[in-house]
């Protein structure tokens, strides 16, 4: 018994990853659980997707994490393999005294015009038309956005670009954009705080953050013309439609068709070197072991944090990609781990 424990401690290995802050909660939860279950200690620094890409390109960490998928040619150039881990969603949060959670109905046109600064008050007739059954206070609209460049902003602005040509040709989509109106706050917590402090405010945040902090979210009309609530069921409806066959598993879940689909859902990605140098081979191998463990045993942790796990067919495709593409210094396969 004591001997067995000593062996388990000896087998404890550490891997380091850096990048996106969007999936940080679930990676941390997995890290805690994997320490016990798989003997892998994860050291994850959520320094932002850009930082993660920089660090894995320089090979200073075992894996990088990015919210936005890298284009195929960039993956080739940097010798990286990209694969998704979980999906997450972005929701709208509001501060309208008297308006209940998930009561306010917004259409893509309303959201775009609010964030373009064309609708400036909550008593605008167009908002009233879609919300006949609730009383909305007559307040000026204050917009809160992420001031720090972030995957959340990338996802949200990609959605706005998809539903509005005016947004697409105006501010466009990116980790930070040129917002026509509003105030920038730092991090999900900054946006949440700005919305909480200002009556009449609207902002967007990662769903997990909104749920944990019980923020007032809204309904949104999806591509099929139905108003949907931001709940697990509608996220899963979107996830079920994902097309994972694109290069780098870059499935696009923004504004999909389907009656019950929440329109702002996105996968988040891991970047792994395809040609790890000799002293990083162990780190690469252990990173694959870590995510293999997470795919097998981490679904519950992900769901409890309101992330959507990937279907098991995608897990298999990812393992196949590891076996196919990740090679050691002598050209040997690093996955599956033999012995």
């Amino acid at each position, binding site marked *: 018994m004591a001997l067995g424990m000593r062996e388990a401690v000896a087998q404890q290995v550490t891997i380091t990853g850096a990048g996106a802050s969007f999936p940080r909660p679930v990676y941390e939860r997995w890290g805690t659980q994997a320490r016990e279950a798989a003997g892998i200690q994860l050291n994850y620094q959520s*320094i*932002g*997707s*850009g*930082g993660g*890409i*920089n660090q894995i*390109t*320089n090979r200073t960490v075992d894996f990088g994490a990015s919210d936005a998928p890298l284009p195929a040619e960039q993956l080739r150039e940097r010798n990286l393999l990209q694969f998704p881990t979980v999906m997450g969603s972005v929701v709208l949060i509001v501060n309208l005294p008297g308006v209940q959670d998930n009561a306010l109905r917004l259409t893509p046109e309303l959201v775009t015009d609010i964030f373009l600064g064309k609708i*400036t008050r909550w008593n605008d007739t167009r908002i009233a038309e879609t919300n006949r059954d609730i009383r909305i206070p007559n307040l*000026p609209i*204050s917009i*809160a956005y992420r*001031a*720090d*460049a*972030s995957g959340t902003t990338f996802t949200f602005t990609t959605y706005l670009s998809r539903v509005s040509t005016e947004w697409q040709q105006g*501010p*466009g*989509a*990116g*980790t*930070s*954009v*040129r*917002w*026509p*109106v*509003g*105030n*920038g*706050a*730092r991090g999900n917590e*900054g946006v949440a*705080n*700005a919305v909480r*402090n*200002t009556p*009449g*405010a609207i902002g967007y945040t990662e769903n997990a953050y909104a749920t944990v902090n019980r923020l007032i979210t809204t309904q949104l009309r999806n591509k099929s013309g139905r108003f949907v609530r931001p709940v697990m069921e509608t996220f899963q409806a979107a996830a079920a439609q994902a097309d994972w066959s694109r290069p780098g598993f870059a499935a696009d879940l923004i504004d999909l068709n389907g009656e019950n689909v929440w329109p702002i859902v996105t996968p988040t990605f891991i970047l792994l070197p395809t040609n790890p140098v000799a002293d990083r081979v162990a780190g690469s191998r252990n990173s694959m072991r870590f995510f293999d463990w997470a795919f097998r045993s981490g679904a519950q942790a992900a769901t409890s944090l309101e992330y959507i796990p990937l279907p098991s067919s995608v897990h298999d495709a990812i393992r196949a990609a590891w076996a196919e593409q990740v090679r050691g210094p002598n050209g040997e396969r690093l996955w599956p781990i033999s012995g």
Partner: protein
Amino acid sequence: MQQTLAASAAPSLPTGERRKASSFGDKLFEWLCRGAGILVLLTLGAIIVTLFIGALPAFERYGLPFIWSTEWNPVEDHREAYGGAVAIFGTIVSAILAIVFAVPIAFGIAFYLTELAPSWLKRPVGTAIELLAAVPSIIYGMWGLFVVVPFVQMNIQLTFGEALAALPLIGFIFETTNFAGTSLFTASLVLAIMILPFIAATMRDVFEQVPPVYKESAYGVGATRWEVVSGVVIPYTRISVVGGIMLGLGRALGETMAVTFVIGNANRMPASIFDASTTIASVVAMEFPESLAGSLKQSALFALGFLLFVISFVVLAASRWLLRSRLK
């Protein structure tokens, strides 16, 4: 005095080998100190060079117009364009407004401490001011976000906003559609409180250096306290006071965290002091983690950093030059 001491100590110096050893120690010490001094210069030089090399692609791409272009669009396609004008404007205006708010209060504190306060109170109040200077800026940021922002929103903007905007000629600088409370004005207010202790402490120190005989002569011919301060103390210390203000300005220009919390981080030219804006330091802090190594965006951020360095350097050099008579 010192010379006589040295002369009287000379005969007791150790002789022979011990003197040799100590002269070697002296040399070593001298070179270590010199090395430390050179290291500072090298570090400073290395920072400037690194910033400049990082900024080079942006400067090559945009040239001098980088400084006055208001375009800042980090979306990576045909839209991508970088100009520093908004951040530079926000940096300078928020710092100058902070000075405008802080200087009268700092003057009041310095005047009170040197002329009015009973001597048992001078030390505690003076220490309290110096302690204010030691509060970490993140604390000012949090306090600003949770206290000053709602205060500006409720008690200034919603109470006086319309009256201020109705003022003839200058009304437009108060007119806004931004009611979030985070604005150029709020940032200036928080900055003013942050730099207050620096300015107040400098003013107090230089006020105390006025030879008492000048003041007593003025009192002697029947001058009031105000006349003494405005006719004797201020003219005597004028240049040093300006130098102290410049030191505060230098700190205000580079402040990052506290400002980021309360300025609203909007890369748009503000039309009013109640509009959201941004500063060089906030833009760099917010955007840097998501900028790819070697990208034009990163280079533009380096360029902003370089410009901030230049602005701070000029302000600090000016303050040194103005304070030179007091710093000897």
